[in-house]
């Protein structure tokens, strides 16, 4: 299993998944798409803020994920002020330009993205700026998927750019405790083949350790400066992932001293409206099972029929890091 949309893109785009299957190696994408694992409730929180005259900002793919009735993009056509940004600094710029309006950035992403949020918060953005923190961390999710025991994982291809930040050390417990071989891997086709080769060699030798194929960008200790900045701003929290129950310690929340930038504190009264409400996956959508590695896109009856990139039902068809979107783009659906 791997947990990165860019790995999935490399595998499918270059036909490596089919090639490897012929050699007896099946690789599936687990919960490795930040947009996909963001929960329906987090999307509804953003939609609610958009309805209350707040300027809401988000990465492109997040805009198209359907909520119960609307997506952020469709809220825009309802007259709400929803803006797509390339990164958090663009959202801060919008806040500077609109001092009389509240501006919220939907902070999704794993450890690759979380330091960009942390650095921006430390840089004291204006008071009308805040974030809806949806950051999640990979190692606790990997632990959860192994402990749930729904699928047997012979080896893990670890995400290169998450590892750029956290290094290779945080994965070691998975090899020691659960005996899973792991290789931190880059994104070129040869990187991915190399990662598979290294995993197969470990399996053949009955070893279970963390190896690093992506040495040009990943060091054992990771980016220490980025980790320090993250630790100043965030603390771990328990958080639900789409398709999963609450995963202990797998989320990041702003520490209390930064709560003036926490949209859930700043707009508490507005968000209270949906605080105890449960939001469900779209009817018939099997994104949850896909994210747990139980099915492939072709196992979902909606895939390519009612669920397409133009009319996505679930987030895995929206995001270009989602398995369904990737499969749809490169396969003869």
């Amino acid at each position: 299993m791997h947990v990165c949309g860019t790995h999935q893109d490399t595998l499918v785009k270059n036909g490596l998944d089919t090639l490897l299957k012929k050699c007896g190696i099946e690789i599936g994408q687990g919960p490795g798409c930040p947009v996909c694992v963001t929960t329906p409730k987090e999307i509804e929180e953003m939609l609610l803020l958009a309805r209350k005259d707040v300027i809401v900002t988000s990465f492109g793919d997040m805009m198209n994920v359907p909520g119960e009735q609307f997506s952020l993009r469709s809220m825009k056509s309802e007259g709400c002020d929803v803006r797509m940004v390339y990164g958090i600094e663009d959202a801060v710029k919008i806040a500077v330009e609109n001092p009389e309006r509240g501006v919220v950035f939907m902070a999704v992403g794993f450890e690759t993205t979380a330091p960009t949020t942390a650095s921006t918060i430390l840089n004291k953005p204006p008071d009308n700026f805040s974030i809806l923190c949806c950051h999640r961390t990979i190692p606790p999710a990997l632990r959860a998927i192994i402990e749930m025991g729904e699928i047997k994982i012979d080896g893990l291809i670890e995400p290169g750019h998450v590892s750029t930040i956290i290094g290779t050390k945080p994965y070691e417990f998975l090899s020691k405790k659960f005996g899973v071989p792991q290789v931190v891997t880059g994104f070129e086709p040869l990187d991915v083949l190399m990662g598979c080769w290294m995993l197969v060699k470990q399996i053949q030798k009955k070893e279970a350790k963390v190896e690093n194929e992506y040495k040009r960008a990943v060091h054992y200790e990771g980016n220490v400066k980025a980790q320090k900045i993250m630790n100043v701003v965030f603390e771990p929290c328990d958080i639900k992932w789409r398709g999963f129950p609450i995963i202990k310690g797998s989320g990041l929340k702003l520490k209390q001293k930064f709560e003036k930038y926490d949209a859930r504190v700043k707009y508490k009264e507005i968000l209270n409206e949906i605080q105890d409400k449960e939001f469900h996956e779209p009817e018939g959508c099997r994104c949850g099972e896909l994210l747990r590695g139980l099915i492939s896109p072709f196992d979902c009856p909606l895939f390519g029929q009612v669920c397409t990139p133009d009319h996505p039902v679930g987030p895995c068809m929206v995001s270009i890091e989602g398995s369904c979107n990737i499969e749809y783009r490169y396969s003869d659906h």
Partner: protein
Amino acid sequence: MLDVTHQIVCLAIPGKIVEIQKDHATVDYGDGTRRQVNISLVKVKKGDYVLVHAGFAIEVLSEKDAMETLDLFREMLSLEGDV
């Protein structure tokens, strides 16, 4: 190259630092695209290659390690059929 409408949340693109201005630097992506990038998460100098994600440089790329990886690729490809 940097498609905002479909920005991949975990994608990082390599580029070369051509000019440093305090917390930001101009990065050249090699195809004529140049962008201002925040460099507060890394220690860089002019001429370094960095990985850029969501407007931030997240790591400096090592040429030495890249060369070693190329050697390993050659080794893997020469062993075709062994695995």
